[in-house]
């Protein structure tokens, strides 16, 4: 499962389409920087940096799915949207992708725009639209919050995978003919399974944070007064 969740490498999508998506990603990231500053003002750099490090670290933690043989890891897009909001969340995931392409050779450099569009923009946008909707519709209980996190994480992973299918349809280097629907189906099926794991972990993680520091959960802002007293947190001041 882990190996399937990888970034698009060079040569899968043709050059012009990759360039168009690179321009799109650049424009969207500019918006994210501007809106992120509104959320965090000059705290943006250190806070977003730490959140990006958090996402990166989380992606390095493997958890067992069936015994030790098969393991997966969190993608973290929906988790970031839930905890720090769509703008900073997308920005952090994008920075993680840039560093992974430049330093780790994961995902082609020429395909960076495509990867950022799928995982940082589409995934986070889908997650946040669902979060904004579900937080208002569902009861404001722990169960409601858990369902919100689960559904948005699940959908965001599947939407990101369909972004790849769209790009392949626009500029795939091999004509699949009628098999494009098959590609869409396979990608959706595989990512549905990944998304279930992603959703379960995202939900549990958000519940943990909401219990200790509800004021830090972006999705809950403006919905309830931050009445819970700040409980001293594990780790303490260092």
């Amino acid at each position, binding site marked *: 499962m882990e*190996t399937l969740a990888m970034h698009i490498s060079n*040569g899968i999508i043709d050059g012009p389409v990759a360039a168009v998506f690179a321009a799109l990603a650049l424009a969207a990231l500019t918006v994210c920087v501007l809106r992120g500053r509104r959320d965090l003002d000059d705290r943006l750099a250190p806070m977003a940096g*730490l959140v990006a490090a958090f996402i990166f670290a989380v992606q390095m933690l493997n958890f067992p799915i*069936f015994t030790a043989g098969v393991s997966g890891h969190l993608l973290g897009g929906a988790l970031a949207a839930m905890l720090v909001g769509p703008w900073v969340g997308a920005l952090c995931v994008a920075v993680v992708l840039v560093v*992974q392409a430049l330093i*780790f050779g994961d995902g*082609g450099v020429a395909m960076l725009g495509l990867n950022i569009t799928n995982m940082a923009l589409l995934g986070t946008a889908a997650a946040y639209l669902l979060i904004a909707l579900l937080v208002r519709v569902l009861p404001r209980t722990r169960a409601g919050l858990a369902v919100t996190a689960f559904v948005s994480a699940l959908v965001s992973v599947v939407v990101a995978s369909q972004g790849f299918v769209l790009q392949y349809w626009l500029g795939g280097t091999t004509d699949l*003919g009628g098999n494009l629907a098959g590609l869409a189906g396979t990608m959706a099926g595989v990512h549905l399974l990944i998304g279930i794991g992603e959703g379960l972990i995202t939900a549990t993680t958000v519940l943990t944070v909401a219990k200790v520091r509800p004021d830090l959960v972006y999705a809950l802002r403006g919905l309830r007064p931050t009445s819970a007293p700040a409980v001293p947190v594990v780790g303490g*001041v260092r």
Partner: protein
Amino acid sequence: MGAGHGHVLYRDSDSPVHRLPPEVKIVAMVVFTVAVVATPREAFWAFGAYALLVAAVAALARVGPRWLLSRALIELPFVLFAVALPFLGAGERVDVLGLRLSEDGLHGAWNILAKGTLGVLASLLLAATTTTRDLIVGLDRLHCPQVLTQIATFMLRYLDVLVGEARRMRVARISRGDDPRFLWQLRGFAAGIGALFLRAFERGERVYLAMLSRGYTGRMPAVWQGDGAATAGQWLVAATVPVVAASIAATAVVLT
């Protein structure tokens, strides 16, 4: 994602490639990659020439083929995708070893394999010869928006700290008898991630306060830029690789 991120890919050495300024290497790598991607896939000889170019730079940088090839395994999932293409592709069929395969699919598989591998090798060479700090300095000198380089700096600075914390929490959990084997036993793992987020976020707040108390006003001090931007000579030396790659690509486009 996944494999390989835990390793530090930088190979400490003192080769001509290591000594080049980072911004020069980044531009060379990106231009090389774009040239490779722009090459028509039928020009088989061009990819051989690119491979020779990569091998020459690797030899110059004193990076062994074993190291490069084992790290390049990160590409494996897309190799599997490439293998599936000849069976899925549309259009004319050809007989290969008794199998009816799509000709277009075979070309597509070759395309992904060749371009993907060359891209990964180029990234690995950059990573092997440039420290992460230099890489950020290079991006900054290339006028990458400062907010992005700042975020990337904080991320790389604290990544090891957070990974270390996560490892300690895992050891603590396991030494207290937690042994998650299946997806539905993930509570402990996920609660740990929640705690990790709180620690990360609060560390960010402390870092910000520490920066404020040292006079941070939203821009980084001049020291940040590092010293000695690339000279014209260094640009010329490093330009050899992308220029050769670009001319190979241009020749391939003209010939096909």
